[in-house]
């Protein structure tokens, strides 16, 4: 295969996936400025490795893997500082107040989901986000988190279980949401 250096197929990779990877990282980091840096770094790494990627590779899943690894390293580095922040943010909602009804409840509930997700252990949080927000399959998630597809599924399950329990006091959310 002869590749023309002036034509860059990577541009279409950026066009197709940057917004989604950025969104994933905003959720993962809870800090848009970190997501800016990490999403750029993801694509810079990808660009350098792109030439050696097999033609039939799943580019989207591969980008999630790079982004996840970068984020995990970043997370380790940020470590305690961030953990302390999350604890403080989640602490206030340990005992849910009683919520008003209607629209507000739905948005309160999704804010509550965000808070619960933010306090989840790293792998559960990322597995949940990749599966439920970005709809990656468990193989791809396992690849990203360096575990089996089955473990990835278990991480998502644990996350959902905790979220459900965390919303249990919001009876009204469930009743409002009944089809």
């Amino acid at each position, binding site marked *: *295969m*002869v590749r023309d250096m002036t034509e860059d197929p990577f541009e279409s990779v950026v066009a197709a996936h*940057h917004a989604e990877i*950025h969104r994933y990282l905003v959720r993962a980091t809870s800090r848009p400025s970190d997501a800016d840096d990490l999403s750029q770094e993801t694509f810079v790494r990808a660009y350098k490795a792109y*030439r050696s990627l097999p033609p039939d590779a799943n580019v989207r899943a591969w980008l999630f893997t790079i982004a996840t690894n970068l984020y995990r390293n970043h997370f380790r580095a940020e470590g305690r500082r961030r953990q302390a922040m999350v604890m403080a943010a989640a602490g206030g909602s340990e005992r849910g107040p009683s919520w008003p009804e209607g629209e507000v409840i739905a948005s309160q*509930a*999704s804010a509550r*989901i965000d808070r619960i997700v933010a306090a989840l252990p790293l792998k559960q949080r990322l597995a949940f986000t990749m599966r439920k927000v970005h709809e990656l399959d468990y193989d791809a998630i396992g690849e990203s988190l360096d575990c089996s597809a089955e473990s990835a599924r278990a991480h998502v399950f644990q996350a959902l279980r905790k979220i459900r329990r965390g919303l249990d006091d919001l009876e009204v959310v469930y009743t409002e*949401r009944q089809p």
Partner: protein
Amino acid sequence: MNPENTTCCDIEPDLVAVAAGEAGASAARGVERHVAVCRDCRVALERYRVLERMVADLRRAPVAGADPALSRAELESRLADIRSRMVAYGIFSSPLGKILIARSELGVSMVRYLDSEGAARSHLARLAGGEAVEDKAAVEATYEELLDYLNARSTRLGWPLDLRWAGSDFQRSVLAATAQLPYGAVTSYAGIARRIGAPASVRAVAQALRHNPIPIAIPCHRVIGSSGDLTGYAGSRIGLKERLLSLEGVPVGLRAHKIERGHMYVLFDGYTEYCLPTCGSLSQKPMAQLTLFGSRRHAEAVGLTPCTACRPDLHPISA
């Protein structure tokens, strides 16, 4: 769901799977049977279903405070910068031995004869600020053209050249003047020095050509000593210089690595006619003012015509 009941604990992952629409047929049947008799799990299943719908909303919800467009614009400019510094290279076999070829988006930036593949690393390290990436596919076409050239299937390497890694403006001007030398012709280091308007800088010219980043394409093998000696080439590879010149029909004395002026057609600077070496006072002229051709064919290929006085067309030099 009754936490005391092990069935309820065991079935929870299946409840989640059913709610997400991911459950297999047998798990789905198990859940159906269980929730028919267990009110708690029936409620739990329903809640997981509601949760699935809420999570689906999450997918569509805008993410607060994030502007991917801005981040993407920054990314594009970073990629453009990397791309401009990126040099793809490959190591290939050639009639002249192992060869490293590297090119950037601007053109060919390096050709190197390799004694071993390990030597590539130190050559690539000279591309300061560049990002060398092994990518044979990206340089394959360049390699094919080189092979055609070395196997005498073509007489021209029409490559765009990237001279960003040439040492200095002086070196760039030496390389540019050398690149003008036609196929099948030679001149002297002093000739190049004269052409770039620095007739006293003969040694500096030799030095600049010694560090020619793109030999063959910039034909420093066509530059010889004023006495006709081949002098040096790519370190101690004078044999390669001889082979490249022979390929172009330039006769090289077998024993002394020397080109005899008496066996070459001669072009005096500024003329458009080429002559026999014996024409007029040519034999007294300094090498620096001459370009020598090994054959009439290659002289005429660049638009020169036979001298009407000495008539090289009627009295060709015998081989």
